[in-house]
């Protein structure tokens, strides 16, 4: 090979090796850190992974928020209007967290079926509904179109149309 070609060959080789390593790292990191969203109904149907974090969304059930008197642990229920899942969280809840609000939390399901949240997210707008939650409420409302209270469905549709 001529020196110029040799140089070019090394450059290309270096680039290919670099890009392959980078791609490998990225794909690796990506698949490890991908976090899926599930509704409370999907949790009850056993669709959620047992060993990794996922995001759970729903409405905070009215009257379900219970505080531990000694620590910062809070227990509450999340619902998509069909099924509820109990959630436990230790720490300070976001400003917007309150009963009836749509929230998303991040964490794992434990053996007792309690969702141990590491993080609770609520958006800074009292009218805001996370789109994932709106979507799961809508699905629940469709499945349950005979018995649920009409108002819930309307509210949900309103939220969705926003």
């Amino acid at each position: 090979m001529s020196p110029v070609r040799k140089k070019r060959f090394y450059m290309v080789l270096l680039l290919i090796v670099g890009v392959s390593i980078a791609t490998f790292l990225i794909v690796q990191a990506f698949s490890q850190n991908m976090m899926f969203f599930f509704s409370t109904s999907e949790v009850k149907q056993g669709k959620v992974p047992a060993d990794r974090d996922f995001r759970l969304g729903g409405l905070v059930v009215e009257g379900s928020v219970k505080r531990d008197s000694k620590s910062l642990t809070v227990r509450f229920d999340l619902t998509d209007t069909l099924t509820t899942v109990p959630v436990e969280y230790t720490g300070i809840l976001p400003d917007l967290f309150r009963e009836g609000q749509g929230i998303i939390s991040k964490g794992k399901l434990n053996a007792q079926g309690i969702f141990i949240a590491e993080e609770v997210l609520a958006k800074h707008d009292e009218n805001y509904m996370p789109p994932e939650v709106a979507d799961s409420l809508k699905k629940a409302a469709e499945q349950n179109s005979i018995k649920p209270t009409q108002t819930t469905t309307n509210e949900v549709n309103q939220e969705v149309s926003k």
Partner: protein
Amino acid sequence: MIPEIGHFSLIIGLAFAFVLATVPLFGNHHKHTALMQLAVPAAVGQFLFLALSFGCLLYSFTVDDFSVKYVADNSNTQLPMIFKVSATWGAHEGSLLLWAWILTGWALAVSLFSKTLPLSLQSKMLSVLGMVTIGFILFILLTSNPFERLLEIPQEGRSLNPLLQDIGLAIHPPVLYMGYVGMAVTFAFAIAVLLEGKFEMAWARWAKTWAIVAWAFLTLGISLGSWWAYYELGWGGWWFWDPVENASLLPWIIATALIHSLSITASRGSFQSWTLLLAILAFSLSLLGVFLVRSGVITSVHAFATDPTRGIYILVFLVVVVGASLSLYASHAHKVTQRKEFSLLSKDTLLLLNNVILVTMMATVLLGTLYPLILDALGVAKLSVGAPYFNSVMLPLTVPLALLMGLGFATHWREDSSKRLLSRLWLPAVASLLVAFLVPLLLLPDVSGLAILGLLMSSWIAFTALIWLLKENSTGLVKPNMQKFGSALAHIGFAVTLTGITITSIYSIEKDVRLEPGQSYQINEYQFKFIGVQQKQVDNYLASEGHIKVFIDDKLLTELYPQKRTYMSQVMPMTEAGIDAELSRDLFVALGEKLDETAWSVRIQYKPFIRWIWLGSILMAIGGVLTLFQRRKKVKPENANVAEVNA
């Protein structure tokens, strides 16, 4: 009346933009000088009318004209004057108008400061800027008119989102937009060069100036946003890998690559097509940012109310801009490319490699940002990739980036020998190894491998930059070479930011605790004593104000007053942190909730070196701008050869 004047000025501005976009190009085609020269008055015209339009909107805010829907939605009479002014760009419509006005401002600047370029190139550039302006003004007029009137005039406005009632908001968006929109100049330059069919080294020098100014604004804008999020969102994080943050980081990464690629083109006359591609990419990513924020495809603190037509408009605009410029690039780029030989070990190679790393970084951030959106849009799955993904990918990419940065400083253009390189590099290598091992051992609470790695990278960059500066700038401070001084400062700034990121990420302490009045909590040597909470009424909000005394060894260090605010006309409370800032650490306290009669939950944080993150970015921006103050010597032929060897 005033809002209508604003609306009409916007339309007249559009007419000027049409003239700017077409007439000079037509003149170019027919080699008609007068028509080409028309670009300058057209650029002045669109700037003035958009200024008038923006002024009218600003005026409507200051006089509380609630007949204008946008004002009624985002302001009220109780709002302090400064926030009435900043509310002008506090939501979608107004911020777009600001964006368009800034765009015409850049076009005006180009028309005034491009005397060194040939008329044909200058007029083409301005025409391209005119086209981009048309796109944005039409977007405002068709989908987001800020001057829309209400039939029923409300007594009181709905007020500005409390999060945005802050000095950070008053300055963060305009500075950021200056950077975002500044990318349009290098984009227009790239298109004009492609149309022109040649790329002279002097033009690259011109373009580099503009790229650096825009980049400096972008740097400041991003770090202002980070700083604002840190103290205003209440929880002490400084970067969340939120899609909108990523949207500003993407063009920043590419702009960084562009500046370096431009400097190769300007001083070596090579890499032309790569430079042009980066210029196109940087602006495309700016537009992508607009799409992400304005279309409502993402949910974040930055996302404004959603309206599908807006998303579709920007998406179409994005596709047209990217499609047209890339096909022009594909068909014309070969005309401007020149090959210059360089050896494997040379500044050319190292800069190229770092460009590749930067583009890879951009691609990883882009993937993490867009992939969840695409899967969601296709209905496949709802997922998110959080901060761990970005962190775990960026770290291994930063290591070679830092290594090559240091090598780049010590290496000559075109060709260098490894022996000479070694003689120049042993000193910074030893110095940075010493810093990286001694600082964690002696000054930090424990020795962590990542801390050593982070400090090694940043001190390597800082020392190589310093030694390079000492060697190259032999005249010293009497007659400093601003180009080199600025460049070294910018890279040292990056090292400072890197140090801040490393130490904050590893040694921060964050505790949520339950505190009764009189109770204390200890973090390192700091004792936080909770005195109690008082109710307060301030301007347009009510506040529960906590009082916390911080002691070191029973000696009072400082008192912090974190607040929980409830704004009038809003239901939701807002957290306002109490912060004691020092160069080496921040003490950060935020009130959580009232737990019972007297106890509160309190978040206490110890954040070492967090100020370095923003300090470094300020140094980067200052350094970048300083390089522009280098007076060019009239180069004599014999000096030119010397310069080539030494540069």
